[in-house]
C-alpha cells in the first residue's frame, strides 16, 4: 500500500500496515528525504521537489509511483489528497483502492454547500449560512447584513482552518474576504467562499463514525475539539465533558443518519457546533481520518486505520455489530512548531534534542526524531501527545505530567502553551468553547515564573564558571589564565585573566 502523505500521519499508517503484514510504500519530496516516514517504511520513492503542488499534491506523479511500485491501494492520510474526489477517482481508474469513501461521496460531502443539503435532508439542524458560494464581496456583505455580524467566511473546499476568517464588523469584511480567498486559492486551488452566522460561545464537538463495506454505520463516540486558534484545533478530548447521555445519543444518531444518507463508507467525522443550550448544529463532514483520531482509539481500543483497510477490502469492521463501549478519558495535545510567545509564529530548524514522555497512559504519534530538520514547506504539526486515564481529571494530570516531561529543543514549539492551557482553572472545570483562547489566553502568562528565573541565573553563572575553567591554560607562575568563550571582546585587559 502506498501512503500519499508525510509526517506523523504517514508514520501512523506505516505502523498499522506493519502490524497487518502489508508492505508500506512511502513517497517523499526532496526536503523529506530524511523524514521519519521514509526511514520507517518498507519502501520509499521520491516524487518531486519541496512545494506540495509539485510532490505530495502532484496527482500524476503519485498515481504513477503507485503503479510503478505495484501498489494495490493508496492511503491518503489527512490533508493533501485525503478529501480530493478527483484523486479518489484517479485511483479507481488506475485500479488502486483508495482508502476512504467513494469519490462521489467525497465530492458531495467535501463541498460544504452540498454537505449542508445532505445534513438538512437527514434531519440535522444547521447554522444559518449563505445558501451557495458567494460570488462577490457585495454578496458577502448582503449575507452579513441579513444574518447579522459576526459572520464566518469559509472556503468551499476548506478544512483545518485554512481559508477561514471571522468577521466581527462590517469594516473588517473586505480585508478578511481577500485573505480568506488568497488562502483558499493557495491551499485548495479553489477560491470559492461561503459565509455563515457565527455562534457566540459554541463548543466544537464531532462524531467519529465508521461505515463498513455494506453501509452499516457505527458511532464510536464524540470528540470535544473546542480549543482552537484561528480555527486550528490545538487540543482534543473524548468524551465531551458535561454532555448528557441523551444529547450524546442524539448526536451519534444524527451523524449516522447523515453518513447513511450520503452512502458513506470508511472512517469519517461529522462536525457539530454545540450551543450552550445543548442544541447542536451540523458543521461539516470530514471524509477522512482526522488528526485527532487517536483519542477515539484510546477509549475504544480500536485501530481506525486497520478498520479503514478492512472496509476498503470489502469486509466488515473488526467488531461487527458489537462496537466496543468507550472506556475512560483521552486527551490529545498537538505539538506544533509555533512560538506561542510570539503570535504562534511558525518555526523551522533542527530537532537538537528530543526526549518524548513515556510511561503509563501515554501515546506519542510523532514525525520527528533527534537531528531531524523541520522543513519550511508543510504544516507545523510535529507530534501528537495522547494520554488516557480512567477519568478526565486523571487524563488532565497525566497530560500535564507528560508535557512537563517532554524535552524538545532546537526550534520554537507550543509545549509551554499546552502547559498553561491544561493547568488553566477554566480548562480544569471543563468550561470550554471555541472562544477559549480569545477569552483567556494572554501570552504574558506563558512567561516562566520566579523560580525558573533564579535557576536560569544560577545555571548561566555555573556555565560561565565551568566554560572558563575548561579553557584555562597554565601560566608560568603556577596560577592559571583563562579566556571567556563567548564572542564579545573583553573591554578590560585584566578581566579575562585571574
Amino acid at each position: 500500500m502506498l501512503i500519499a502523505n508525510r509526517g506523523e500521519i504517514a508514520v501512523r499508517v506505516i505502523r498499522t500496515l506493519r502490524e497487518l503484514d502489508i508492505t508500506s510504500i512511502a513517497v517523499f519530496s526532496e526536503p523529506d528525504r530524511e523524514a521519519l516516514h521514509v526511514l520507517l517504511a518498507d519502501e520509499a520513492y521520491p516524487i518531486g521537489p519541496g512545494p506540495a503542488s509539485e510532490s505530495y499534491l502532484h496527482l500524476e506523479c503519485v498515481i504513477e509511483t503507485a503503479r510503478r511500485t505495484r501498489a494495490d491501494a493508496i492511503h491518503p492520510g489527512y490533508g493533501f489528497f485525503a478529501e480530493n474526489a478527483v484523486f479518489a477517482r484517479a485511483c479507481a481508474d488506475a485500479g488502486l483502492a483508495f482508502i476512504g469513501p467513494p469519490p462521489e461521496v467525497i465530492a458531495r460531502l467535501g463541498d460544504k454547500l452540498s454537505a449542508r443539503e445532505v445534513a438538512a435532508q437527514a434531519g440535522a439542524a444547521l447554522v444559518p449560512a449563505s445558501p451557495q458560494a458567494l460570488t462577490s464581496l457585495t454578496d458577502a456583505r448582503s449575507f452579513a447584513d441579513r444574518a447579522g455580524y459576526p459572520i464566518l467566511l469559509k472556503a468551499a473546499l476548506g478544512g483545518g482552518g485554512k481559508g477561514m476568517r471571522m468577521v466581527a464588523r462590517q469594516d473588517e469584511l473586505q480585508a478578511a474576504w481577500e485573505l480568506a480567498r488568497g488562502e483558499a486559492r493557495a491551499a485548495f486551488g479553489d477560491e470559492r467562499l461561503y459565509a455563515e452566522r457565527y455562534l457566540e460561545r459554541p463548543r466544537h464537538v464531532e462524531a467519529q463514525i465508521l461505515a463498513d463495506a455494506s453501509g452499516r454505520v457505527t458511532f464510536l463516540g464524540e470528540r470535544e475539539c473546542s480549543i482552537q486558534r484561528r480555527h486550528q484545533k490545538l487540543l482534543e478530548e473524548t468524551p465531551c465533558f458535561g454532555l448528557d447521555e441523551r444529547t450524546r445519543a442524539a448526536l451519534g444518531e444524527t451523524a449516522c443518519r447523515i453518513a447513511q444518507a450520503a452512502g458513506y463508507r470508511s472512517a469519517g467525522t461529522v462536525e457539530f457546533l454545540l450551543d450552550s443550550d445543548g442544541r447542536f448544529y451540523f458543521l461539516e463532514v470530514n471524509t477522512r481520518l482526522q488528526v485527532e483520531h487517536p483519542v477515539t482509539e484510546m477509549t475504544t481500543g480500536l485501530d481506525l486505520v486497520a478498520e479503514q483497510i478492512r472496509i476498503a477490502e470489502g469486509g466488515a469492521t473488526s467488531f461487527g455489530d458489537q462496537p466496543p463501549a468507550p472506556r475512560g478519558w483521552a486527551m490529545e495535545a498537538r505539538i506544533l512548531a509555533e512560538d506561542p510567545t510570539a503570535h504562534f509564529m511558525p518555526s523551522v530548524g533542527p530537532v537538537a534534542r528530543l526526549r518524548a514522555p513515556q510511561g503509563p497512559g501515554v501515546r506519542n504519534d510523532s514525525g520527528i526524531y533527534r537531528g531531524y530538520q523541520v522543513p519550511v514547506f508543510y504544516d507545523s504539526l510535529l507530534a501528537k501527545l495522547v494520554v488516557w486515564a480512567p477519568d478526565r481529571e486523571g487524563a488532565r494530570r497525566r497530560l500535564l505530567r507528560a508535557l512537563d516531561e517532554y524535552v524538545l529543543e532546537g526550534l520554537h514549539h507550543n509545549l509551554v502553551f499546552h502547559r498553561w492551557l491544561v493547568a488553566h482553572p477554566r480548562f480544569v472545570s471543563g468550561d470550554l468553547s471555541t472562544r477559549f483562547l480569545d477569552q483567556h489566553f494572554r501570552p504574558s502568562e506563558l512567561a516562566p515564573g520566579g523560580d525558573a528565573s533564579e535557576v536560569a541565573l544560577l545555571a548561566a553563572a555555573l556555565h560561565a564558571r565551568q566554560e572558563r575553567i575548561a579553557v584555562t591554560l597554565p601560566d608560568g607562575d603556577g596560577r592559571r589564565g583563562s579566556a571567556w568563550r563567548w564572542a564579545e571582546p573583553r573591554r578590560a585587559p585584566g578581566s579575562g585573566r585571574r
Partner: protein
Amino acid sequence: MGRATARSGLGASMKLWVTLAGRDTEVEFHAEGSRLWLEFEGRRLEADFRRLPDGEVYSLLIGGRSHEVRVSSAGSHLEVTLDGATLPVEVRHPLEKMLQSVEARSRVAGVEIVAAPMPGLVVAVRVKTGETVTPGQPVAVVEAMKMQNELSARHGGVVTEVLVAERTAVSAGQALVKISQAGS
C-alpha cells in the same frame, strides 16, 4: 579577583554578576573538594552542575532541586532553556561590570524596519515608497507553512523603501519595508 580567600588555588572561590530581565545578582562560588556552594541574594545553596552526554545540556541540582537546563551562547549573552522556555542571561566579571556602567550607547532611532519573522514567500506588498502608514497598518503578507501572515507597521510613518517584490522567497529577519518614523 573578588575576595582572595581561595583555599585551593583554582576556582575555590570566585564571583560573577548575572542579569536576567533587570534582575541583577552577584553570585559567589565556594568550592570545597568536589562540593560547590553558591552564595547569592543572602542565601547559600549547594550546587551540583553536571554536563550531560546529550548535547549542551546540564543537570543542575541546586539545594537538592533537580533541573535540566540547556545553556548556549548567543553573541554577547547566554541563553538558558528550561522547561521549554528560553531566558537570556548576561554574565559579567565584576570588573567588567564596573567598566560597563560608565559606557554610553548611541542608538539608531527613528527608522522602523518591517522584517520577515521567518522564512516564507511574500504574497502581497500593501504599501509603496513615499506612502504614509498609520500604526498597525498592514504592509505585507508572508506565507509560511501554509498560513498567510499579515505584517503591520508598529509605529507608522513614511515608507522610505520597499525591499522585496511579491512572489519573492525571503529568509527569517530579512527586511521587507523601511519606514521613517513620523516626527524623527
